[in-house]
């Protein structure tokens, strides 16, 4: 079986600063991996490097998506190949309606896959369903992308995009931060509804609470640019109770 996502000895940074320092991670279809780790460890950086954001330079190592060399592809090629990043801080695009934005995105992926583009009518139906699923009022389809959305609404909007885009691997960067209790449940339900044997998730979070809703197959600790420990869901509980201190200096490196 080809791994969905395979990252080997990844070194990457920005402007001379090394952030990822030999990161290994393998994800198979259908798996949910949680990544936890202290602030500044490089979690968001991993998402950016995988999706090809400008300014991030890979100095060593490799990453493949379904066997394809990910690092050699343009940002939008990676996206239409099935990589989705839910942003920690979603940006606003004033005046561009959410609906138009999502329709163009979804159709870009469909064109890449050799499928027919959705018509406005077809897409509207899908969008309305997705909007209801993340419990945003329907007028959010008409509003500008993230324009004036509250923090929690922005996060739900990310999940709505994920539902519509049907990616094969979803990298959710702190999608739970800033959510109230009900929103957390909504977002988790949205993610769970998308779990399938073909789709995998990387869920970056600081709180074990999210993992009560989205049950991970693996939990990894990312610190100082590397995965320093991997385990099952119980690892997240241990961190919740003890913090990162127990990892100390002489931690034992393990692999999932």
């Amino acid at each position, binding site marked *: 079986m080809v791994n969905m996502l395979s990252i080997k000895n990844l070194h990457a940074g920005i402007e001379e600063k090394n952030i990822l320092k030999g990161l290994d991670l393998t994800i198979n279809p259908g798996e949910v991996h949680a990544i936890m780790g202290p602030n500044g460890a490089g979690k968001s950086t991993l998402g950016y490097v995988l999706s090809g954001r400008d300014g991030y330079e890979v100095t060593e190592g490799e990453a493949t998506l379904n066997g394809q060399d990910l690092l050699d592809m*343009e940002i939008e090629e990676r*996206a239409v190949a099935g990589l*989705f990043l839910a942003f920690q801080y979603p940006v606003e695009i004033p005046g*561009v309606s959410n609906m*138009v934005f999502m329709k163009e*995105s979804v159709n870009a*992926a469909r064109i890449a896959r050799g499928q027919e583009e959705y018509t406005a009518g077809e897409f509207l139906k899908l969008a309305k369903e997705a909007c209801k699923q993340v419990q945003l009022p329907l007028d959010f389809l008409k509003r500008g*992308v993230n324009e004036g959305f509250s923090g929690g609404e922005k996060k739900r909007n990310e999940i709505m995009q994920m539902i519509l885009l049907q990616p094969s691997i979803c990298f959710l960067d702190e999608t739970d931060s800033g959510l109230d209790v009900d929103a957390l449940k909504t977002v988790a339900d949205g993610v769970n509804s998308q779990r399938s044997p073909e789709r995998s998730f990387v869920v970056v979070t600081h709180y074990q609470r999210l993992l009560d809703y989205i049950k991970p197959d693996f939990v990894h600790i990312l610190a100082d640019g590397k995965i320093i420990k991997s385990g099952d869901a119980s690892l997240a509980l241990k961190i919740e109770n003890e913090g990162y201190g127990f990892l100390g200096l002489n931690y034992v490196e393990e692999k999932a």
Partner: protein
Amino acid sequence: MTDEIDQALDKKYEAGFVTDIESDTFEPGLNESVIRRLSKLKNDPEWLLEWRLSAYNTWLKMEMPDWANLGIDEIDYQAISYYSAPKSMKDKPQSLDEVDPELIRTYEKLGIPLHEQERLAGVAVDIVFDSVSVVTTFRDKLAEAGVIFCPISEAIEKYPDMVKKYLGSVVPRGDNFFSALNSAMFTDGSFVYIPKGVKCPMELSTYFRINELNTGQFERTLIIADEGSELSYLEGCTAPQRDENQLHAAVVELVALDDSKIKYSTVQNWYPGDENGKGGIYNFVTKRGIAHTNSRISWTQVETGSAVTWKYPSCILKGDNSVGEFYSVALTRGCQQADTGTKMIHLGKNTRSTIIAKGISAGRSNNAYRGLVKMGPKAENARNFTECDSLLIGDKCGAHTYPYIESRNPTAIVEHEATTSKVSDEQMFLCQQRGLDPEKAVSMIVNGFCKEVFKELPMEFAVEAGKLLEISLEGSVG
């Protein structure tokens, strides 16, 4: 990221082809005998010849203004030809069947089919090619409603009283250097009259094309909306891609009589010159409307072309309760320069004006909003709201805002808001992460920025304007 956007902006100008056609073209140069020759050719009445000559004498005493600080090579007015018309137009074709097929093909290539059955239903068009009007569609249908829509040359012949009364009444001949030049040498243009109480049954439009080398286009548009009438008028323009600069100096006059409404929309896509600033149209246009009691004049413009654009569509709000609006998108790239805005002159009581100006600058271009809001002493309770937003793409371009306010009435209120923003790396990254290529991403972000203005355009035009922006922002991405 900036590089990528620059590449995305490295656009193709799709209207840049030349029509190979035989023309009668005046030798370059301007003097009294050239004016007499033009006047004779056009069968002008005596008063119009006098009118032209007096404008010419005024022009001779004027100098080209330099207050806008535009970088323009000195224009040699004796090196320009002031008249050019396809030879085939000499016999005055009476119907489309008699029009040179080469001309018809030109407009087909530009996406403007001239045969009525192929036209968007509901849009009548007057076609001006170099110095002459080639054809005006749907005239019979308009005539049923009493609407007059014809080349201005024809109006001078058929409706001399009306033309004489209003020509130069809104933009006097000596108003400025270019209006004087235009008044002396205007060759053709469109004339519209909407009778009392009539709502024009279809959109009217004029499509301007400059084709001949070294020729200037000096057209004149006069629109009169009689009491209680309504119309929406659209204007589009293109020119071939050439290394030489060419001059376009038009005058547009709008007369909105009591209780009438005029909506005037422009999509200006003259050849902008290449990325190093070689060639392109100098677009120096005077547009002004006078609004009588309870009337409304709306200017909407999408300016993407021309090497230099210099225009300020304005409203004289003379009548009480009259309304003036100006919605503008000006996009500059390469080495383009745009200095555009409006003047809202509030004379009557309770007059209202709204100005929404969106400037988008890319490449090494410069984009300025320049506007005047003037509240006269009798403008009791007049109101103006102005919003100027600039969007920068890359870091080598410039955006400037020059709002001038003169208020001589203490009850008048003027509000001004201005913002400057950039197409950010984060926005580009979000779009691309969702699968959009950089060109599409830029055009989507820019379209979003222009939304408030685009929604003022008539439906078909809004789509066209969006596409035009997309083409303007299109190019090869490495």
